[in-house]
């Protein structure tokens, strides 16, 4: 336990001072992308990892957050931060609308509905040109600002991203060790039994999903401000696949897994730059091999290795 606390503080401290030591904007950008991915992965983890319902339209909620922020900031002059909140709320409302009818059903209906929802949103974002400016996207999303200071380089965004990640991790950690998190896991492990011990499975599934969509909306809004841009590309299905990959290769239903997954998925393309064309193919193979041979992801492998070591020590 001690060692865990110590390493937690060490990592936090390192994360806090990193932007002071690293000035190369490219590295900072990569770090921001990594954290945005980690927040997204943690937001999907509630429903995909803990509850075990397959949500396949996560990019849509990221995109809704981004579009909400862009449109509010540019058309109504809503100040930044307010747009982050609004991105979360609007995304959450869409989550509610998608989840309410489909999470009642058992079977793959929710997975298919979320997939279809993602496709519909992409169509709308591409074709409703009077609102979304179509496939070219919306440029000029204003940067974030704090106390009159406009964020002009990566460093302040780094800290906002870190804050969002801390928030997502805190949510995950507290929920996982509460009655609510136990209810989530109960639903994944044994649906009928969960109902019979008094868990309102529908309500908890919906709560996990909506919570995740709110978080995805907030981080989507943040990303639109950070890049000053949003386009239908933010809604593409490969982004959803990326996030699903992060959660699964890291270890679904854990706190650390999705974060590890996000780091890996963000860094792998950089490492695989040589094999640019086959990058996503390699991704796919990693995902496939994980599903077949290590269904609990990196965290599961680490746990098994740890237990094995412990066992040998005892023997």
């Amino acid at each position, binding site marked *: 336990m001690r060692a865990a606390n110590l390493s937690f503080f060490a990592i936090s401290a390192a994360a806090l001072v990193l932007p002071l030591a690293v000035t190369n904007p490219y590295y900072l950008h990569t770090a921001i992308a990594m954290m945005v991915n980690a927040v997204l992965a943690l937001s999907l983890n509630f429903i995909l990892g803990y509850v075990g319902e397959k949500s396949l339209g996560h990019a849509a909620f990221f995109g809704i957050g981004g579009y909400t922020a862009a449109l509010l900031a540019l058309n109504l002059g809503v100040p930044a931060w307010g747009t982050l909140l609004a991105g979360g709320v609007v995304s959450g409302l869409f989550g509610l609308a998608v989840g309410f009818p489909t999470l009642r059903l058992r079977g*793959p209906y929710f997975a298919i509905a979320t997939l279809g929802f993602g496709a*519909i949103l992409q169509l709308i974002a591409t074709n409703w040109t009077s609102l979304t400016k179509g496939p070219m996207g919306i440029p000029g999303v204003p940067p974030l600002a704090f106390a009159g200071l406009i964020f002009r380089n990566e460093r302040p965004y780094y800290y906002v991203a870190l804050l969002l990640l801390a928030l997502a991790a805190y949510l995950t950690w507290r929920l996982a060790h509460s009655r609510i998190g136990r209810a989530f896991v109960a639903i994944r492990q044994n649906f009928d039994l969960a109902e019979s011990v008094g868990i309102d499975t529908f309500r908890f599934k919906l709560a996990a999903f909506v919570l995740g969509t709110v978080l995805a909306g907030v981080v989507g809004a943040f990303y639109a401000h950070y890049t000053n841009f949003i386009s239908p590309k933010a809604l593409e299905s490969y982004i959803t696949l990326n996030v699903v990959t992060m959660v699964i290769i890291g270890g679904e239903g854990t706190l650390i897994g999705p974060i590890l997954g996000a780091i890996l998925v963000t860094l792998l393309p950089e490492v695989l730059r040589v094999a640019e064309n086959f990058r996503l193919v390699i991704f796919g193979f990693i995902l496939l091999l994980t599903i077949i041979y290590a269904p609990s992801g990196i965290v599961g492998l680490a746990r098994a290795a740890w237990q094995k070591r412990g066992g040998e020590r005892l023997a």
Partner: protein
Amino acid sequence: MFWLLAQQTLNGLVMGLVYALLALGLTISFGIGRVINFAHGELYMLGAFFTYLAAGRMGYLGGIAAALVLMAGAGLLLDRLVLRPLRGGRASLWAPFLATLAVSLIVQNAALAVFGPDPYLLSSPYAYQPLMLAGLMLTKQDLLIALVAGLTTFLLTAFIKRGKYGLAMRAVARDRQTAALMGINIDRVYILTFVLSAMLAGLAGALVAPKATVDPFIGRMALLKGLSVVILGGLGNIPGAIFGGLVLGVAEALGAGFVSAAYKDAVGYALMILVLLFRPEGLLGQRMRRA
């Protein structure tokens, strides 16, 4: 107005038969193989590319034949290498589904690396040959699609309803443990299911390709269309897949003709969502209880 309606309905029925082919493959892999095959669209895309590659030497029809053989191989590989290791044991019910997600990622991007993002034209000798039919226009390709898709649908339905292996497939769909006790070789039924499923998807791709273009991304849309149809007709429901395909085809054609071509695809999703909301068991399915 009437002619537009009739013409669009006819166009819709032709596309609807293709959707039915796509959905039949998906619905048997769900109903019998217990997998929502997320890579089904990629099988469709492969079917189109294989036909394109083979057609250069063998002509369009020869190309389709060659592609079907290759698709049978693809279905076999999918079942043996990806799905079989995930059957039984304590693997979650969802693992095969996620695995097909990975397969989709692999196949789509491998195709992208090999063929590049630009569209290919698969030419068919029938593509631009119009036929007039009681005042309505149809290309010979449309006629070919209607004939081949209609015949395949008919044969498949008959095969599953009456054939010896069809009976085994239905038994496995109902209850795989009992089927195993009855002496049915379940493993073989799975192979047959995914081979058939892949061939159906590939055939759909090969038939549609001359009406459009072929690129590594056409599978995504095909998957969504297939899933919409499967939802419309009811998951795992074979007559439902055919009926749903025709409904979707006609609805889209009418939507494109009377509303807006840009939202043609949205018609299908909107239909799917309406069905999910009000009749999740599908238009032809038995009423189910909401838990």
